[in-house]
C-alpha cells in the first residue's frame, strides 16, 4: 500500500515539475496544444513500470549505457602529473634551468607570479606495470598492479588556475556559481535505484602531506536543478548524515510513533485541503525514518571481513581515504548513483618530494583495492571509476614544490566501457602543454555522460530562458579514444 502511495506521490511531483518546465518554456494559456503534446509525450514515460523510486527525467537512455554508476576519487588540491602518471625525462635534464619562454610567456601563473620560472626535475622514477607496461610513478605500486585496468589520460587541460573556480569548473562545467554539479545532472537524468539512501553521496578526507585546501558545498550543489538532486555529505564523525540522529532521550519506538502520528494527521489534513504536496511530504517522512536505520547500518564497516579491511588498508570508520573507499563501495552496492570521494591533500607548493611520498601512500592501496573489490563483486563492468584532481602542477619549481598548472595534467579512468591498459593523449617534453589529443574538462564531461547513455547535446534543463547543458556552450566532444 505504501508503495502505491509513493508511486502516486512521485508521479504528482513529476507532473508538477514537468508542467512547471513546460509552462516556463511556452508562454501562457494561449498556446495550448504545443505544451500539451510535450506533456503527453513525457507522460507516457512517467507511467512506465520501473524499479526506480525517484525516476530520472530520461525515460530511456539516448543510446545503450555502458555504466550505471560513477565513483569519483577526487584528488583535491591538484596532484602533480609529473610525479604520478606523466613521465618526463627531459624535465630531469632541464633541472634548474629556465623554462623556454616560448612556453611560459603570457601564460597564467598562480603563486609564481613575478618569479623566475625554472624547471624542477621529476622527484621520482617511473616504472612499467602490468602486461600493458603502463608507465606509472614508483610511488604507486598498488595502482600499478591494476595498470591493465586503467586508462590514463595525459592530455587534460582546464581554464581556472585557482582551486575554488577550478573545482567549480571540474564539477559543474562552469566557473560561475549556480550551475548544477555533474552528480546532480546524472541523478536528475537517471534517477536513483535505492529508496533509503540519497542518490548522490559525497565523502571527504584530509591527508598529512600538505595544506588541506578548502572545498565548497557548491561542488555538489544542484544549482538551478531542483534541490533534491543535491549531493548529500556523509560524515565520518557525529551523525553520518546531518540531523540523522534522534534527539537525546528519544527512543526509536518514540520516533517511529511520532513519524506515524505526523503522517496520519497529514493524511487527514490532505482530505481537507486537497494539497498534493502532502502526499510527497508523507513519503519524505517515511524515507527520512528509513534513513535513520539504513544509513548507520551502511556506514558501520564492522561487518566487513578482515581480508577486505586488510585489502583496503583500514580498520574502517576512521575517516581516512581508505575507509571512505570501502564505504563508497557499500554505497555503490546499494544502488547509489554517484559517489565522490574527496581526498584534500594534493596542494604541494613546497616540499613536494616528501609530500608526494606521504600522500601517495594515503591513496595508493585503497584505490587499487576498490578496483579489485568492484571486480570481485561484479560491479566493475557497469561502474565508471575516475581518479584525478582539478588541475595539475607546474613543471617549474616553486621552492621545493610546484605551483598550480592548467595547460596539461592527467586523469585516470577505469571500469565499464573504458579502453583499459592504455593511455590517451600526451603533454610536451616538459609536461607543460597537453599537445596530443588535448582533452578539456568539458570533453571529460561529455564522455562521462556518454558512458552513462546520455548524449550531452540533448541533455538540457531550461533555466532563465536557456537550455543549459553540463558541457556548456563551448565545443565539447566525446573522447572516442578512451572508449572500449
Amino acid at each position, binding site marked *: 500500500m505504501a508503495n502505491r502511495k509513493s508511486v502516486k506521490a512521485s508521479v*504528482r511531483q513529476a507532473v508538477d515539475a514537468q508542467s512547471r518546465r513546460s509552462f516556463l518554456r511556452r508562454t501562457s494559456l494561449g498556446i495550448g496544444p504545443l505544451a500539451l503534446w510535450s506533456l503527453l509525450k513525457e507522460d507516457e514515460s512517467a507511467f512506465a513500470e520501473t524499479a526506480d523510486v525517484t525516476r530520472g527525467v530520461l525515460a530511456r537512455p539516448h543510446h545503450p549505457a555502458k555504466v550505471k554508476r560513477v565513483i569519483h576519487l577526487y584528488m583535491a588540491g591538484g596532484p602533480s602529473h609529473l610525479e604520478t602518471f606523466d613521465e618526463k625525462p627531459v624535465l630531469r635534464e632541464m633541472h634548474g634551468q629556465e623554462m623556454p619562454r616560448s612556453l611560459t610567456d603570457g601564460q597564467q601563473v598562480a603563486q609564481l607570479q613575478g618569479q623566475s620560472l625554472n624547471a624542477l626535475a621529476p622527484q621520482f622514477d617511473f616504472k612499467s606495470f602490468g602486461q600493458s607496461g603502463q608507465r606509472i610513478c614508483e610511488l604507486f605500486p598498488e595502482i600499478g598492479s591494476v595498470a591493465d585496468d586503467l586508462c590514463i589520460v595525459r592530455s587534460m587541460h582546464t581554464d581556472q588556475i*585557482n582551486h575554488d573556480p577550478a573545482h567549480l569548473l571540474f564539477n559543474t562545467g562552469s566557473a560561475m556559481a549556480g550551475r548544477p554539479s555533474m552528480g546532480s545532472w546524472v541523478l536528475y537524468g537517471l534517477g536513483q535505484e535505492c529508496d533509503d539512501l540519497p542518490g548522490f553521496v559525497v565523502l571527504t578526507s584530509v591527508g598529512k602531506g600538505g595544506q588541506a585546501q578548502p572545498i565548497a*558545498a557548491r561542488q555538489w550543489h544542484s544549482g538551478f536543478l531542483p534541490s533534491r538532486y543535491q549531493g548529500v555529505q556523509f560524515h565520518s564523525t557525529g551523525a553520518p548524515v546531518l540531523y540523522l540522529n534522534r534527539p*537525546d532521550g528519544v527512543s526509536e519506538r518514540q520516533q517511529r510513533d511520532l513519524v506515524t502520528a505526523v503522517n496520519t494527521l497529514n493524511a487527514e489534513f490532505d482530505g481537507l485541503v486537497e494539497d498534493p504536496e502532502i502526499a510527497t511530504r508523507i513519503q519524505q517522512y517515511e524515507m527520512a525514518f528509513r534513513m535513520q536505520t539504513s544509513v548507520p547500518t551502511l556506514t558501520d564497516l564492522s561487518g566487513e571481513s578482515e581480508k577486505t579491511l586488510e585489502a583496503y588498508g583500514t580498520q574502517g570508520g576512521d575517516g581516512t581515504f581508505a575507509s571512505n573507499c570501502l564505504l563508497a563501495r557499500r554505497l555503490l552496492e546499494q544502488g547509489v548513483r554517484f559517489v565522490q570521494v574527496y581526498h584534500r591533500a594534493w596542494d604541494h607548493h613546497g*616540499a613536494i618530494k616528501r609530500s608526494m611520498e606521504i600522500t601517495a601512500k594515503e591513496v595508493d592501496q585503497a584505490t587499487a583495492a576498490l578496483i579489485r573489490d568492484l571486480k570481485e563483486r561484479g560491479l566493475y563492468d557497469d561502474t565508471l571509476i575516475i581518479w584525478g584532481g582539478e588541475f595539475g602542477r607546474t613543471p617549474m619549481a*616553486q621552492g*621545493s614544490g610546484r605551483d598550480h598548472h592548467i595547460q596539461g595534467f592527467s586523469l585516470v579512468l577505469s571500469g565499464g566501457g573504458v579502453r583499459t591498459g592504455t593511455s590517451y593523449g600526451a603533454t610536451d617534453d616538459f609536461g607543460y602543454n597537453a599537445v596530443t589529443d588535448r582533452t578539456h574538462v568539458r570533453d571529460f564531461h561529455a564522455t562521462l555522460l556518454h558512458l552513462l547513455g546520455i548524449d550531452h547535446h540533448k541533455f538540457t534543463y531550461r533555466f532563465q530562458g536557456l537550455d543549459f547543458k553540463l558541457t556548456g556552450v563551448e565545443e565539447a566532444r566525446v573522447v572516442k579514444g578512451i572508449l572500449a
Partner: protein
Amino acid sequence: MSTRLVLILAWLLTAESLVRADSPNFNRDIRPILSDRCFACHGPDEATREADLRLDQAASATEERDGYHAVSPGDSGGSEVIRRVISADDDLRMPPPEFGEPLTVAEIELLRQWIDAGGEYAQHWSLAPLHRPSIPTPAATELVANPVDAFILRRLEAERLLPGPPADPRTLLRRLAYDLTGLPPDGDMVDAFVADPSPDAYRTLVAALLNSPHHGERMATYWLDLVRYADTLGYHGDQEQSVWPYRDYVIDAFNQNKPFDQFTIEQLAGDLLPDPTLAQRVASTYNRLNRSSGEGGVQPKEYLAKYSADRVRTTGAVWLGSTFGCAECHDHKFDDYTAKDFYSFAAFFADIKEEGIIRNAVHIEQLPVPTPAQQRRMSELDAEIAVAQAEFDERSDVKLKAFEQWKRRVAESQGNWKLVRPVTATSEGGATLSIGHDGSVLASGDNPAEDAYLITATLPIERIAAVRLELLPDDSLPAKGPGRAGNGNLVLQSLELEVAGRTVEWTTASATHTQAQHSPEFVITGNRVGWAILPQTGQPHQFVLVAKEAAKFESDDRTAMIRLGQRFGSGHNVGKFRIYVAAEVADEPESAIALPELLTIFETDESQRTDEQRERLWDAFRQQSELHAATRDRLRSLQDERTTLQRSVPTTLATTATTPREIRVLPRGDWMNDSGELVEPALPHFLPAGSLAERVASGERLNRLDLARWMVDRENPVVARTMVNRLWMLFFGNGISRSVDDLGSQGEVPSHPELIDWLAAEFIESGWDVRHIIRLLVGSATYQRSSTPTAAQTEADPFNRLLARQSRWRYDAEPVRDNALAVSGLLERKVGGRSARPYQPPGYWRQLNFPMREYEADTGSNQYRRGLYTHWQRTFLHPSLLAFDAPPREECTARRDRSNTPVQALVLLNDPSYVEAATALAARVLRASDDDFENRLETLFRMALARKPRPTETQVLGDLYQRDLAEFREDGARAAALVSVGQGESDDALDDAEWAAWTGVCRAVLNLHESIMRY
C-alpha cells in the same frame, strides 16, 4: 484512467476553449516561438547570425532578399519562413536538425495566422514605454475591492471561470501575517479577527502588520536574496566579512517605507550623493557584496574582471529583471544587450576602490558604523587622549636631563649583544644547514613540510638574559627569503635554549615586523599559528626573546643547545639566520625589545644623528622612564579603551570612489585579451536615456549616480515592471510573469499584461511607494480568496495563473525557523545587529581552511534570533536553512526553489533548534493550563496553529502522549535528557516525564505540514 491523464485532458479541453478568436498577438504568441527556435541564429547576436537575417526585427524579416521575403506580410504562402519550417528536407528545414525538433503543427499554424493577418511586430512588452492602461469593468462589480480585482476578474470572466470564496478569517489572518511579517499571528489577534472579520478590521490589521518592525525583516529577506547578501567572501577560504550594517539598512528602509527610487539611488551610489549620511554610505555596500577571493595564487586582474562581471550580472538581474550576464562573452542571443553594453555598464562600477586579491582575507576600505553611544564615547576619549598626549609630549628641563642620563646608560649596554657562533647545525627534517664565516646558518636542499633546527654552540657569555634571532635574506631562497616557503615566508613556533641542562623560560617576545595574526607571543606559548613575516619578505628581521630569569652557566663549559621549531607545514621553514645573546637587558623589558632597532643609532656619533634618529631615541626613552610612567599609563589605558571601542564598532564594505579603472570589451569574456575596445560608462543602447539624455549627449563621462538616477527615471520601462512583478510574487506565489528573473524574450509573457503595467505606473506615480503597492495587493479581494481549489478550478487552471483562488506554498527557510521559535515563545524579537549563530552540527565546517575554524553557537537569547540573521556562510550555508532551499547567495536569486525532501523531515525532527522549540512550547502549554489532556491540547493548538484540534488529532496525539509518558516514567533519565536539549534546563515546577511526553506532542505538531505552510 490515471489522474494525470484526466488532468491533462481536462486542461486540453479548457485550453481549446481558450483559443482566441482574434489573430495571434506578436508578444504573446509569436515572439516566444521565434525567440526560442530562431533567434540564436537569426537574432541580436551578430557573431552567430546566419544569412544576415534577423527575425527579431521587422525591417530585416520583411526586406526583399533576391526575390523573396522571410516574412511577407499578409502572405504566409509567400513567406520563406513558413516554407522553411514546413520543409520535409532536412537540409532546408528550420531549425536545422542539430538545433532541435521541428516546429509543431500548432506553432506553424500560429505563424501562418500571424503573417496572414499582416505579420505585425511589436516592441517586446517589458521594453515598451510604460502607459497606464485603463481599469477594466468586469461584470461582477460587487467582487471588486480595488483595481487589482478588476483586471483579474475581467480575465476570469473571459475564461468563464468563477472566482472562489473568500478565505476563512483564521486562514486569512495567518496568511496576511506570514506575508507581511514572516511570523504567525498570536492567538488573541486571531480571536479578535474571527469575532469581527469586517473590512475595517482587516484594514486595521494590515496597517498594524505593516507598522510592525518585523515587516522590514520580512521584506529584507527577499531583497537580500536578490543582492546576494552574505557574511563571507564566497571564494576559497570563505572567510568572514562584515557587511551586516547593510542588512540592517535594508530592514530599516522597508520599515521606514523608503521610496524605492531613493532606496535604489542610495545602494548604487549613496557614496556619491552630496554630503552623504552614514546610512547612505552604508547603503552603497551593495556594490561590494560580490564574492571575492583571498586565495594566495589569485591573479588580481583576473579577479577584478570576475568582480566586475558579477556586478553587471547582479545589477542587471536586480533592477532590470534581465539576463544581462549572458552578454559577458557575446551579444545576447535573445535580447538586445550587446557585449559592448555589458562592458559599458561595467564601466559605471570601475570607480569602486577595491583589490583583486583580498589579502589575508581582509578587505580594504572598511567603513566604521558606530552606534550613537559609541560615537559619544569616542569623542570623549579623543578629548582625554589629547590632554594626556600633550603632557606626554612636553619636554621639561627635568625630563630632558633624565633623557641625557638614559642615553648614557643605554649606550653602555649596547655592547651587550654577543654573536653566537654555531659549532653544529642540523635539521631534523633533512634539510642541509651550512654555517657561514659570519656565524650565519643557511638552509638548502630538501625543504620538508615541517622542520626543527638544532644548533650547538659555546656561548660567548656566562649569563643569558635574552636571545635575538636575526633573519637574513639570501638570493638562494625563494623570493629571497628569509624563509623557505614559496613566497619567502616562514613560521616559527618555538625557540628553545638549553643552558646548563635547563631550558630557559621566556617572558616577552617582540619582533621588528609581525604578520597579521601571527604574534611573536605564540613562540612562547607554542601556538601552532606561530610568528611569521608576510608581506615583508626579502629583508632582514629581528626577533627577541627575554628570559623570565637570566640563565647562568655553573661551570666553564658554556655549551648550549638552541632548537628552532617550525611546525606550520608546507615548508614554512627558516632560510638564513644568525643568533645573538645578551647578559643584561635594561630594567624594563621595553629597552631590550627596542634594542635591535636602536643599535645603529647608538653606533652613530651623537653629533651625526639625524633628527629622525633623535626622535626615535626620545620616544624610546619616554616609553621607559619613571618620570613618564603616570602619564604613559593613563595614555595607554585611554588608548586601549579607544582601541577596544574602535574594534567593537561595526564596519561595512561601503563604496569609496577612486579614479576609474580602464574597462575594455573582453573578447569572449577573456580577461587576458587586451585587444578589445576601451569603453566608458554607457546605458544599454536600446533603452531610453530619459532625463539623462542631455548628459549622454554632452559626452561627459557618466558615473554611478547617473546610472542610479536613470534606473528610477520615469521613462525607464523595466525597473518598475520588474519590481511590481516580484512584489506580486511575494503575495500570490508567482509573478504575473512567472519568470521574475527574466523579463526578456525568453521569459514568460505576463498572464495579465495590463495589470503589470497598471501596477508599474501606479508604483512610479505614487512616488515609488512600496507600501502603497503592498496595500493594493493585500487589499484586493483576489488576495483574500480561499486557496483551496474547487474541482473546476483544478481542472481549468491547475497552476492558478488566472487567480480564481489564492495560491499556497511552503514557508521559506527562515520563517520555518521563525514560526517554531515564535510559537514556542523562544523567539528573540530584537531587530538588527550582528549575524547570529544557531546550533549547527559539529564538524560541518570541516572542509573550510585558512584558517580552520570551529563553529560556536550563540548562547543566551542570541540563539533564538530570526532566520534572516543567521550567519550566511556562502560555501557552507547553515544546513537547516539550506535544507529548506535558502540560496547560498553567491549569485542573485529572484525566486527560490520550494522542494519537499527527506532532509527537511530530518531537520524538523532532529535539529536541536526544533527540538528545543518543542520543549519550550511544551513548558508553555504546561504552565498555561494545569488541566486535563484535552484542555492542554487545545492550548497547544491555539498557540501553534490558532485553531482547535480536530477529533482525530485529539485521539492520535492522545495515544502518542500516553505511550511516551509511560516510557518516560520508566526512564526518568531520558526524560531529563530530552527536556534539556539546547539551553533548556529541568524545571522544579514541571514533572520531567510529563514535560518530555508533551515535548513529543509538540514535536508532532511542529512537524505537521500545516505548520510550515502558507494557505
